[in-house]
Every structure is written in C-alpha cells, then in structure tokens.
C-alpha cells in the first residue's frame, strides 16, 4: 500500500504511453514530405525518434505500475498531458530551418494548434514547405475532439480512471453522460462521428475545387473549429461561395455537441437536433448575430452588393462564435460596434461536448433561465420554479457550478488581460488577444487581427497559458494550483 496521495508511478506510465502514441503521428507529415519532396523528412523523423525515446524513458521504469487513477490523478494527468503535448508538438517547429522559430514562438504555435485556437505567429504561409503546413492542420485535428478521448479510444489502459480524465477534458457543465456503457465505447463513438464529418468535409471541399492537400487541411481545421489555414488569406484565398458554404456547414456541425450527432445518427432522426434546447439556442444566437451584422454592413455600404454583405456576415458570425477563426476579409475593420460584438459572441462559443471553445451555449442558457426565474419570483413570491432545459429539470448543484464557472472565467480573463497590458500591449489589442485565446478563436482585433507576430515574448507566453486555460475550462488547472490538492 502506498502512502502517497498521488499515484505518480501510474501517471508517469500513462504519460509515457501517450507520448509514444503521439510520436507516431509525426510519421504522417514525414510521408507528406516524401510525397511533395520538400526536404523535411529528416525533421519529422528526428522529431518522431526524440519523442519516442522520451516516451520510452518515461514508460520503461514505470511499466509495471498498476492501480487505478483516482480523481486527483485524473486532474494531474490531463493538465500534464496537454502541457506535455503542447511542448512536444512544438519540437518540429523549433527544429525546422524554414520557418525559423524561437522556443516561445514554437510553443505558441503548437499550443494554438492543439487547443484549436488557430492564432499564428507565422506569415508567408503560402511559401512554407507543404509538410509543415500539413503538420499544423494535423495538430488542430488531433486537438479538436480531445487527445485524451483519442487515447481512451485507442488504448484500453485507462480503465475506470479514464472517466475522470474524460470528465476533466470534456467541455460543458454536465459531464456524466455516457453514450455507451464503456468509456472506450463512448470515446470510439465520438471519434467515429468526428472522422465521418472530417471525411465528408474533405470530399465536399475537393468537389468544390480545392486541391486534395488543401481539402484535407481545411476540413481538419474546420471540423475541429481550429482555424489554421495553408494560406495567409485564409478561406478568402479561394474566393469561392461554394467553399465558404461548406466551411460554414462544417463549422456549425463542429460547434454542435458530438453526443447529439452520435444519437441523431444512431436513431436516424434529424428531429433530435431540433428537440435539443442547446442546439436551438446555438442556432438562434448565430442567426441573431448574422442579422445584426448584415444590417450594419448594408447600412454602412461596406460591400458593393447586399448579397456580399450577407455572405460575409454569415461566414464571420459562424466562424467567430464557433471559435474557428477562419476569415475571408478583415472583420476588425468593420464599422461601429460590430468587431467588438463578434468578439463578445466568442464568450458564448459552441455547444457543450463540441470542438468549439468559449463558455458554451448551455451555460448561458442556464444563467438566462435563472434570470427569468428571479423575475418570476419577484412577481409571484411564493412560486416554486424549477430551472429546466427542455423538459428536464437541472439540479441546483449544476446551476451553482455554472455560476462558479462564470465568476472564475471573468476573473481569469481580467487578470490575463491586465498582465498582457503590463507587457506593453495597448488595450483593445490586449482585450481581443486574451478573448481570442481563452475562447480558442484565433484572430483578434487591433494588432492581432490577423496574426500574433507583433506580440512580445512575455505576451506570447501569457496568451499560451490563456489558450490552455480556455481549452481545459480553467478548473482542472486551478485545482492543480490549489494548495489543498498537494497537501493530500
């Protein structure tokens, strides 16, 4: 029996295994490099060997460690795992000759990829080697539905403790819902849906005229609501209504709950979507933002034709709220409050259990219901009002947790924004940079409207931390920072 309150041996074994698993993914860009003969094979092979070796070194001494992961171990594993993968993914960027990147830039680019943020420090994407471009898209895709989900689906190693990991990684306030009796089954179901959506996206893009390389890359980053592109001009490069429509559909689907996709697909019922209160609210917010944006754009004669305004407004409303961050033009230059309004919709984000960032529609919905409950209570002081989602009552425990989340989210946001301003970044840029990072969107306003090149090194680290906090929904990291966690 161990006296330690953390099962460090088991944690080390799992981290080692996951690192080895991740190192294998380096072989895909290596193959891409072979195919395009861009001379980066050695880079990815050496990244593969280094990560495999580090993974082995961690795994070998602890491979006989057994025992279940407990709640605490779960938090530590998830946070360590995302940090370690963020660093490991930076290796190819750091080793590459073209582009030349500092450690800070490489880590920022990698974490931005895994957290599906899509903010970049690179310019001149169109001239980069295809394998490196592909690699950026791939890490977004891997990070989209969650690396832990992938690990649980592939390796039966996590057992009962795996549920703790999934809970810590899955976005949203209600984390107990399992699609199948086994977690491995649930994880496989999620990946299957993810894979199907991505494949459909590749085929659609290809049919709409993209090259296969671009089709794969953009489908990866659209379904994962990441937003990396292989072109500096993002989706605007293609200037094609068909491609924009496909992108909109993929982003909307990526921002919806994958559990909902799975159930609707299994029941073969599209009505499941409509019956889901969160999905309805999600569409309603998207519709409202688009409507306001169209009105403002047409009123100010921003585009030559109202139809162009509609196209652009819809695209950016969806792209920003689902935290993807694809653009066809610089929306930061739009008139009036529009750019800031779009930035605010990122705080709503997508649905719980999706690949999108933000605080999630369901949480806002619950807060709204709470608000109407207070109004009802003022009118009828004796009324007994339940907070409901659809027909189902929501327990007070969950509503409390949502309030706690809101408070912590705002505090963390404010602190990070102040810290970024402390490094010398002006206010609107700092606000939008932290908003775009913590909500995992990508583009911001001001100096970070298209990339993060102008941000200093300290600012990049702050933004990197913001992205991780946002992806893991703050609490797992906060738990690690609390003294009670380490005291046992």
């Amino acid at each position, binding site marked *: 029996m161990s006296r330690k309150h953390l099962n460090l041996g088991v944690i080390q074994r799992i981290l080692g295994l996951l690192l080895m698993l991740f190192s294998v993914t380096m072989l895909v860009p290596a193959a891409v490099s072979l195919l395009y003969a861009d001379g980066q094979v050695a880079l990815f092979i050496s990244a593969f060997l280094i990560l495999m070796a580090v993974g082995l070194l961690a795994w070998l001494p602890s491979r006989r460690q057994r025992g279940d992961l407990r709640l605490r171990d779960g938090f530590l594993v998830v946070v360590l795992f995302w940090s370690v993968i963020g660093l490991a993914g930076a290796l190819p960027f750091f080793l590459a000759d073209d582009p030349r990147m500092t450690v800070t830039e490489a880590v920022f680019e990698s974490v931005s990829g895994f957290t599906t943020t899509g903010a970049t420090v690179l310019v001149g994407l169109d001239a980069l080697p295809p394998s490196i471009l592909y690699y950026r898209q791939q890490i977004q895709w891997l990070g989209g539905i969650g690396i832990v989900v992938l690990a649980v689906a592939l390796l039966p190693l996590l*057992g009962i403790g795996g549920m703790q990991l999934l809970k810590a990684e899955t976005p949203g306030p209600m984390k*107990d819902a399992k699609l*199948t*009796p086994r977690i491995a089954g649930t994880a496989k179901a999620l990946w299957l849906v993810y894979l199907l959506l991505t494949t459909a996206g590749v085929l659609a893009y290809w049919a709409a005229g993209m090259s296969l390389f671009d089709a794969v890359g953009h489908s990866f980053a659209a379904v994962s609501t990441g937003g990396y592109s292989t072109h500096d001009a993002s989706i605007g490069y293609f200037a094609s209504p068909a491609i924009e429509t496909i992108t909109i559909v993929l982003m909307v689907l990526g921002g919806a709950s994958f559990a909902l996709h799975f159930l609707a697909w299994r029941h073969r019922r599209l009505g499941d979507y409509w019956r889901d209160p969160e999905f309805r609210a999600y569409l309603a917010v998207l519709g409202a933002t688009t409507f306001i944006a169209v009105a403002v754009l047409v009123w100010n004669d921003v585009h030559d034709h109202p139809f162009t305004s509609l196209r652009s407004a819809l695209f950016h409303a969806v792209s920003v709220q689902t935290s993807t961050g694809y653009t066809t033009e610089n929306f930061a230059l739009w008139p009036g409050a529009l750019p800031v309004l779009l930035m605010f919709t990122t705080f709503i984000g997508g649905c719980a259990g999706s690949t999108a960032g933000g605080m999630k529609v369901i949480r806002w919905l619950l807060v709204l219901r709470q608000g109407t409950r207070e109004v009802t209570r003022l009118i009828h002081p004796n009324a007994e009002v339940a907070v409901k989602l659809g027909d189902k009552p929501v327990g007070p425990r969950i509503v409390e947790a949502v309030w706690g989340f809101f408070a912590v989210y705002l505090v963390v946001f404010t602190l990070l924004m102040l810290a970024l301003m402390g490094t010398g970044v002006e206010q609107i840029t700092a606000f939008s940079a932290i908003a775009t990072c913590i909500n995992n969107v990508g583009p911001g306003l001001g100096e970070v409207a298209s990339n993060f090149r102008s941000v200093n090194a300290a600012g990049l680290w702050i933004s990197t931390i913001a992205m991780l906090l946002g992806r893991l929904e703050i609490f797992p990291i906060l738990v690690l920072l609390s003294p009670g966690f380490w005291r046992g």
Partner: protein
Amino acid sequence: MKIIILGAGQVGRTAAYHLAREEANDVTVVDVNDHLLRDLQDRLDIRTVAGSGAHPNILELAGAASADMIVALTNSDEVNMVACQVAWTLFRTRTKIARIRSLAYTGHEALFFDTDTPPPDGAGFPVDVYISPEELVTQYVERLIRYSGALQVLDFADGRVRLVGLKAVRGGPLVGQQLRNLREHLPNVDARVVAIYRAGNSIAPEGDTVIEHEDEVFFLAATEDMRQVMIELRRVDDAVKRVVIAGGGNIGLRLAQRIEDRYQVKIIERDAARARRIAEILRNAVVLHGDAADEELLIEENIDSADVFCAVTNAEEANILSAMLAKRLGAHRVMALINRPAYAEMMQSGSIDVAISPQSVTIGSLLAHVRRGDVVRVHSLRRGAAEAIEAIAHGSRGGKVVGRRVEEIKLPKGATIGAIVRGQDVIMGHHDTLVEADDHVIVFLSDRRHVEAVERLFQE
C-alpha cells in the same frame, strides 16, 4: 454481453462490479436514486439511467432493445417480475433473471417460465431464473454449520460433488505431510486438492507440496467422502449440537427453520414483536428477545457451550461485534455475515472464524449466465479473485476437451481440472483421466483473469 441491471442496492452494486470488470460485458445500471447512480458511475466503467426499472421507456433508454440479459435486483419482487415481463413482451430480451425473495411467489413454480421452453398457453411471468439472495445465503450457512471447520462449502453437479475450503490445523494427520500421501491415508476415498493459499498467496498444489499449519486448503470430493477428508486436515471436531443464531430477520428465521430439527437452536431477536412472530412460526427452536451483544444474556444462555454462534442481522457492524463477544465468552465457532470485503478480510484473519460474504454467495448464480460456453455453475471465491466453474464438455473426440486426457487439455495458468461428473459417477481429475462428451467438468481457477481462456475451451 450487454447487460442491464435494475437496482443499485447492495446486490445490484456487487453484480455491477463483478460483471463490469470483465472486458466482454457492457453494463447499464438502472435505479430510481440518482445519488446512488452517480456514486456508482464514478467507480465503475458502466452507464447509468435514472428511473423505475419496470417502465418501458426507462428500459428502452437503458438499451433494452439490444440487451442480451436483464437482471432485476431491486428490493421489490413485484417490480422485478414486471420488469422481466416488460423486457420480454416489448424487447424480447433473451435472458431474464429476477431477484424474488418472497416464498409466497417462489413456492409456485408455475408462476414462472423459461422463455427458451415456453409453456403452450404462455401463462406466467417470463423469468428464466429467479434467485433469492436470502435463500442462497441460508443454504450456504446451513452447509457451513454442517461441515464444522469449513470456511466455504460449495455444491457442484446438484450436490454430488462439493468444494470445501478450510484452514489446516496442526494435529490433522495430513498437516506437515506431502500431498501425495493423501492417497495412502485414505485408500478408499478419491479427493483432490485444487488450491492452497498460504498467507493470502496462492500456491500451485503439486504432489510434493507440504501442507502447513494455517494453510487455506480447497479440495474437491464426492459429497459422501467430504467428512473423511476434512478430518485429515484438522483435529476431529465434535459433531455440532448447539447453535445460537443472532438476528431473527429473513435469513435468521429461514436458517432456524431449516436446522431446528437437527440441532438445538436458540435464536436471539431484538425486536419484541418480531421475536413473538418468529416464535409462532418456529417449532423447536428457542426464541430469545434481547440484544445479541448483551454479555449477560449470552452468559445466561450458556454461550460457552455453544458449538456454533452465527450472527446474521442486517447490520454488519453488530454482527462483527456480537460474534467477537461470543468468541471471547467461549463459543466454539463463530460466524458473521459481513458485506464489506475489507471488513471480511480483517475479521477472518483473527477474531472471527468464518466471515460470510452474501455477495460472493449470490454473484456466482449470475456469473453462470454470462459465461460463454455451456456453463452450469460458477462459484466466486476469495472475494472474487478465484472462481470455480462447472461446465459441460461438448463436441466430438479430438476437440479442445472431449476425447482428451486431462494432461492434454490446454488450461491457462493457475487452472486445475478438479473433478468430472459423468452421469451419476464422480471421477477425480487425475492426469490420465479421459474426458468424454457431456461430462460435467469442474475447473478451479486461482486467478479469475484467465476465465476467458477457460470459456473458450468449452465453446464449440
């Protein structure tokens, strides 16, 4: 196998634990109590659904449409029976097991039918198997009392063969001797030692293994030879005469009813009304109204001359304490019903002679139905770490089992073929015994994790 368990009570939770830890099973647990479910889901890799298990919409949510088996273990007989009826009528679930406690129902076999062989009129509840944990525990305790000295007594082949676990005690003729001497000691008896546990660790029993004092020895023998083998391993215990039962609940009363003609039985019940009620039912047993942990009451009733003291109340802590007290006051052998495995482990290594775990008694009857291959009976041993399986060998000669000698059968590590039952004959598994078709083969597995390999042997 996709399994739905109804009820997250004591029995339901144990069933979920045992079934879910086998990779092949997908378990969904249904209960009305949300809190119980959340707690359970945090600990086991299962899905949970909140709601009444007999309601069709809840069963559908739990996946009844594709479930292979439904196990209704709520504490209401009526809910369990209706749930089986609903599962069969609406979802055609193949295996339906219900917990039915009341003798008022189980007394009428015509009430239930096995859906594999439905009666022509189709009347009755479609319950393939009904189990009554109380009844199983009662039978188990009764056997323990009969074989004084045994830690476990388990039946195979309708009671023709028994597996007994007991602690070897210095003074038994075979203690300190090699196993192969068993045959010389008992030339007319065929028995086989299938497992030895020394200080909690399993030792593979070979011919030259020496049995030591305090070893836990499991052996198989024909029922009529049982006592002779036991005598080899510990000094002769005097036959049991006086039995004291603490607790006049479901189990206590049933136990008293079954044994009151054979032994002098005293039963202690705390509740006055209940005590009066059981006094009306029992014919020979003496019913005492009082606290089983009351020292004076125990002394007054000559606890020091009791051969067996058996604490079977609902409260395990009370069972433990009263059994320890009885032991200290001179009861020869004390047993206590203990639910928590951790308590059982603590107690059996010291102050209490036998810790009876109702879960492992009950779970065996469920496990027999999830095992692939033609498995008749499964007994869970050593708190679920080991298993004893009775399976029927099918197939033609030259298969994996049939037509092979015991030594030729590829058993996983830690597995032993203990005995073979052929019609009415019991044959002990020696290395050259030939297995024939339709033999009941009894396999002892010291490590349950290899159970799949054994299942494969008995699958066609």
